[in-house]
């Protein structure tokens, strides 16, 4: 595998030349690894329904970490269910503190389906293996997927090139006296895989903001995963409406300035082993350690691989030399950057290729997720409050977007009233607003007007808006599935945020006492509520039932159901198209009478399913990415 990295650049160039991915046929049935499983009566017969055996996580149970919330496990055990996730091949019971890279069962299935529909079943198998078992070496992947070495290597190349897998090298622990061994490990990038479903949304954003020329370049990057600037130019030459080199560079530069495109991360960064601290040091830094969660190996790998912020959106040095005055950079800065780039790549690579390696560029998904997050907040505020509040919020987010360092910022940066007003009047519908109406909208958005006139700045609580939107989504599901009374009960428990007794719930929601208990039990059985029993020893021993909504675990469950629904929509679209594939092959002139009816029906069905999928994707991002 040592050769892999050296050959990486050549392979990445070859892969980009291919216009269609190579499809591999599987031989025999694929064994599905199901690790988010119910052991209730229904699911015991599931293996018969599925036609293949259900396998639990391979790690032995004694390796599982202790539970944080023991009451959840007891509640689930009472229902004779065991829920668990695997993260990095660790068997973590449901209710334990969530790890950063947790992926649920249907999240993995959806990701595997997306890879399979674009790159074939072998790539899908490798991706599924990495997602369900965590970071693995090549040998482990070959063993678990039961594919040939050559196939696995090819699949990894494709997945790395499409930004779905990240490789990194790590020093393996060896016995005393032996030379340290460096191994290459591969980790799946779940978020980037799911982003494949929302490419049309990203393209829409680029089209609206930058126009058709930039969209052409952007489409190429989406299709090929990674391209160098020369490849982008060559690709443009082959299109019918090609533009000259300078125009292409100009469009590319605009994409970079808008941060829609970024430099690719290092192909295989080396993770230095964590330094061992002395006891004296430990005492001093103990409090600091408790405050921040320790980084997992995957987080460290991603942090090491990603380029420095200063060069992430910077074009190549060759073009910079000509435009360094415009960028305002000094020559010695350029020289230090060149040194840094040289260190990023091994000397052997440079010497073997005989020329400087070309910089590869890819889509900056983080920027698109940020924009979609802002869009979701603005839309929510516009529908729930007013159009004016929506305009004010979009103005604030426009101003603060470039200063956002993290994706999931809780609050927007503070802006003065005058800056906000100047931005508001530039927006459609904002021209007629005056300072007082802007202030009124800010109050609607939850801001407090400062009592002193000096330093009038405002910041919007975005986390609160996202939470309100999430609550509405789940309440909507409860209303549809369980009815209006269950909706009232769920809203009461969700708003109160604490344990409530059955009678209290019944009195507050005006639901008959006998019906209240039935509804509460149904919601508890389906995992929407958490229940605790309290027995009071008095003259008569009475048993009280207390109920609450556990948002953390419920959100994870809802997200998994949404992944399931998204997969169902995709499968149904494929099914409907397969049913009418003869009609799709016919030319338009022959579509008359009955055939025309069927064609129109297919069109209508596709529109419904695809638009529902895009809406559902908004909800998916609301629960996972925002």
């Amino acid at each position, binding site marked *: 595998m040592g050769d892999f990295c050296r050959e990486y650049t050549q392979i990445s160039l070859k892969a980009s030349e291919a216009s269609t991915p190579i499809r591999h046929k599987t031989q025999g049935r694929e064994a599905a690894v199901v690790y988010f499983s119910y052991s209730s009566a229904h699911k015991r017969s599931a293996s018969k329904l599925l036609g293949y055996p259900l396998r639990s996580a391979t790690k032995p149970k004694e390796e599982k970490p202790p539970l944080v919330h023991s009451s959840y496990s007891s509640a689930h055990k009472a229902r004779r269910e065991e829920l668990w996730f695997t993260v990095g091949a660790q068997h973590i019971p449901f209710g334990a503190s969530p790890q950063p890279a947790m992926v649920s069962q249907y999240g993995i299935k959806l990701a595997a389906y997306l890879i399979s529909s674009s790159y074939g079943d072998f790539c899908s198998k490798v991706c599924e293996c990495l997602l369900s078992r965590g970071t693995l070496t090549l040998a482990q992947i070959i063993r678990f997927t039961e594919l040939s070495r050559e196939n696995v290597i090819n699949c990894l190349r494709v997945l790395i090139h499409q930004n779905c897998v990240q490789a990194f090298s790590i020093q393996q622990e060896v016995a005393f006296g032996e030379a340290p061994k460096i191994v290459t490990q591969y980790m799946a990038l779940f978020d980037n895989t799911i982003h494949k479903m929302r490419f049309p949304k990203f393209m829409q954003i680029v089209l609206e903001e930058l126009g058709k020329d930039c969209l052409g370049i952007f489409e190429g990057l989406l299709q090929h995963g990674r391209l160098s600037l020369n490849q982008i130019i060559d690709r443009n030459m082959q299109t019918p409406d090609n533009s000259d080199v300078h125009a292409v560079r100009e469009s590319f530069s605009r994409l970079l300035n808008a941060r829609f495109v970024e430099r690719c991360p290092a192909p295989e960064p080396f993770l230095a082993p964590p330094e061992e601290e002395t006891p004296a040091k430990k005492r001093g830094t103990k409090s600091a350690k408790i405050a921040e969660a320790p980084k997992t190996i995957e987080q460290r790998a991603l942090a090491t691989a990603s380029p420095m912020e200063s060069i992430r959106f910077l074009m190549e040095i060759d073009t910079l030399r000509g435009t360094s005055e415009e960028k305002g950079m000094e020559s010695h800065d350029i020289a230090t950057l060149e040194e840094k780039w040289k260190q990023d790549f091994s000397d052997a690579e440079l010497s073997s290729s005989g020329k400087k390696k070309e910089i590869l560029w890819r889509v900056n998904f983080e920027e698109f997720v940020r924009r979609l997050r802002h869009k979701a907040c603005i839309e929510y505020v516009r529908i729930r409050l007013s159009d004016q509040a929506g305009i004010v919020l979009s103005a604030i987010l426009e101003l603060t977007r470039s200063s956002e360092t993290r994706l999931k910022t809780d609050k927007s940066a503070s802006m003065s009233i005058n800056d906000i007003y100047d931005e508001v009047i530039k927006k459609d519908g904002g021209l007629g607003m005056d300072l007082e109406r802007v202030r009124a909208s800010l109050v609607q958005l939850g801001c407090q007007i400062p009592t002193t006139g000096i330093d009038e700045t405002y910041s919007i609580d975005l986390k609160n808006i996202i939470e309100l939107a999430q609550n509405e989504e789940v309440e909507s599901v409860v209303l549809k*599935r369980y009815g209006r009374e269950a909706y009232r009960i769920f809203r009461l428990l969700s708003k109160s945020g604490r344990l409530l007794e059955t009678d209290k719930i019944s009195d507050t929601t005006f639901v008959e006492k006998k019906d209240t208990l039935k509804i509460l039990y149904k919601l508890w059985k389906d995992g929407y509520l958490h229940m605790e029993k309290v027995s009071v020893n008095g003259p008569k021993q009475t048993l009280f039932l207390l109920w609450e909504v556990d948002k953390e675990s419920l959100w994870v469950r809802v997200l998994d159901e949404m992944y399931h629904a998204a997969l169902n929509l995709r499968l149904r679209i494929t099914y409907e198209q397969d049913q009418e594939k003869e009609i799709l092959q016919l030319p338009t002139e022959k579509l008359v009478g009955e055939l025309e009816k069927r064609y129109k029906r297919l069109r209508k069905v596709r529109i419904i399913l695809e638009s529902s999928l895009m809406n559902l994707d908004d909800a998916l991002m609301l629960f996972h990415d925002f």
Partner: protein
Amino acid sequence: MVPREAIEVLLSKAKTVRDLHLVRKKREKECVFSPPPPPSTTAVAAAAKPPILLTQRHLNTIGEGMSRSLEISSFKRKRPEADPLGLIDAERAILNAIKSKKDLGIWVRDIKQETKLTDHVVNKSLKSLLTRKLIKEVVNIQNKGKKHYMSVEFEPSKEVSGGVWYVDGNLDKELVNVLKQLCLRCIRVQKVATLERVHEDLKKQHVVNFEISILQVFEILNSMVLDNEIIEVKSTGLGEYYSIPIGTVCYRFDSGPGVARGLKVGAFASIPCGACPRISLCTPDGIISPSTCVYYTKWLNIDF
């Protein structure tokens, strides 16, 4: 053994010679198993003699004697009790047990445990107390199947009756709906209303025959907030809130442009999978799958 009281009752009811024969037989039974009763009246003594052809004169004599004996025996019954209500021991014990629970009421089985009386005695006593209107049966909403009794001078407590919203153990949905409509009308007129304003409005209208408390109005408004019919906001002092102090909780209709078009349905809830009760059983290749799903077929065949 036939108790003496029963025989005396029979004697009082005896109208024919045949009846007298029956009474005589019963008397003989009593004589076999128990010491002979002290001679009480001439009528009883006459009944104990062998049967003779009784003339009307004899029957009249017997009848007078019996009525006299009844008075004596009833007088005898009353004397040891000295109860103003005319209750026997068992009934008095049960009534005391019921009264001790005051407005909570007591279950039949608990009465039996406390008084340690037999089922038959308890049931008879309860019937008698009910007919005398000393106790009443109440429905306990916690346990509708179990019969609870309460003394008439007490009103059922909130835990038993369910409060003002419950009638005969069932939620008075009509009352709740009427009050909800009135509150909505009040808010519609005032645009933004505080709890006090709604309460005053309802009191003025005199729609219900009991005194509505402010707590009850709060409960009604809260349930409408949970139903998303109205929203709860804090006054800002600006615009529509100018007459309401800043920070006061008030109620209004949701005025968002999207809401006016109808309640916004979530993205997940608007597809069949969102409302599906079988989603946990659905798998890509299983019996329940997206390609075979009937809910999808129905949904896609609707003309949009």
